[in-house]
């Protein structure tokens, strides 16, 4: 188990119930998604990037779009969100089928041959696993050379291009 997953698991374990763990863990995953987006998206000389990241309605989807979550991990995370939402809306609603599905997607994202699993699916383990892989990806992203900032202004010829296009459309 990597450091990120270990730390996350310890924090989860201190909470009293699976639903409390989901309620705490999902916003923590959200924070990790936003960190990943920050690390993956080029810096912007203006504040727009921060505003977009802060206001992104579903940062998980953006992280998935950026190729930082696999399809199985994304499905598992989505299903954990649905479980938490259904728990909050109607406590006691049967949700085992959603956890089964999340667990299947997560384990086959690791090993497609991991088809049968005799243990009980665990939402907390899934949360900690996701936090661990996201932390690892964040470290790797931060270690790589950041992409150049958006700098169309500095590139020569861009103003000329715009002027010529304007001229083209005036004809």
């Amino acid at each position, binding site marked *: 188990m990597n450091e990120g997953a270990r730390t996350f698991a310890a924090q989860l374990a201190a909470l009293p119930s699976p639903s409390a763990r989901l309620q705490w863990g999902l916003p923590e995953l959200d924070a990790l998604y936003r960190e990943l987006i920050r690390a993956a998206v080029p810096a912007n000389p203006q504040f727009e990037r921060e505003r977009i990241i802060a206001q992104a309605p579903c940062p998980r989807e953006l992280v998935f779009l950026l190729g930082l979550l696999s399809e199985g991990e994304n499905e598992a995370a989505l299903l954990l969100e*649905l479980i938490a*939402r*259904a728990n909050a809306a109607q406590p006691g609603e*049967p*949700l*085992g*089928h*959603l956890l*089964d*599905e999340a667990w*299947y*997607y997560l384990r*086959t994202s690791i090993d*497609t*041959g991991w*088809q*049968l699993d005799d243990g009980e699916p665990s939402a907390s383990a899934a949360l900690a696993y996701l936090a661990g892989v996201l932390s690892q990806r964040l470290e790797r992203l931060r270690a790589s050379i950041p992409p150049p900032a958006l700098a169309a202004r500095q590139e020569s010829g861009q103003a000329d291009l715009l002027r010529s296009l304007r001229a083209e459309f005036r004809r």
Partner: protein
Amino acid sequence: MTLPTAFFGHGSPLNTLTKNRYSTAWRAYAATLPAPRAILAISAHWYVPGTRVSAAPRPPTIHDFNTNFPPALFDFAYPAPGDADLVERVVELLQPTRVQRDATSWGFDHGAYCILAHLFPQAEIPLVELSIDRTKPAGFHYELAARLAPLRDEGVFIMSSGNVVHNLELADRTADREPYEWARRFDADVRRLLDGREHEALINYQRLGADARLSVPTPEHYLPLLYTAALQRAGERVATIVEGFDFRAGSMLSLSIAA
């Protein structure tokens, strides 16, 4: 007149354009059907939180598959009109379940048009899709579907589209090989349970052991079958439209229920 109702194993999206023994059987089945005034389709590929109906006057054709498929499939359109009256009737019948009229987020997906391109290639019959609420357990879907039963007497052909066995991770596209034994056994079990009208066992399919867990690793392709089973009336029989397997782990079993 009561219209039959049917479940189709749709398989690969390519079946939309392909003439093979499955699509040939679907066409032959369509020739036996009385002309419906409208179609209600329940597809494995509209599997979202909440119960929704497609409510646009001209729902778009959704190309819900990856870009490895040929351009011709992306060019395909199934331009059937929507049906506002049917939408309202479905909303009414499904009460107290809240049904969202969805005119923007979805249209006709390949689960529906893969079959309908062969059943009704002219796309002239109004079509409405009903989503499968992924947050709900199997029993919910069976009970929900049973409320749709009056539509069969109102000229509506209710079709569901999925696959009784659907395990993409174990699909073997390398050769034309025999299906996995567990897939064959589960397919036969389902057929037997339908014949015996043992719907409780179909709802609780996860209790059918390892064969079920391998055949139905995730529920979206199996649940459409429950929509069809729930519409079976006393004295009605189940008839096979076509059966077989694709890629060892995909059942193509298609069934019709009628008096």
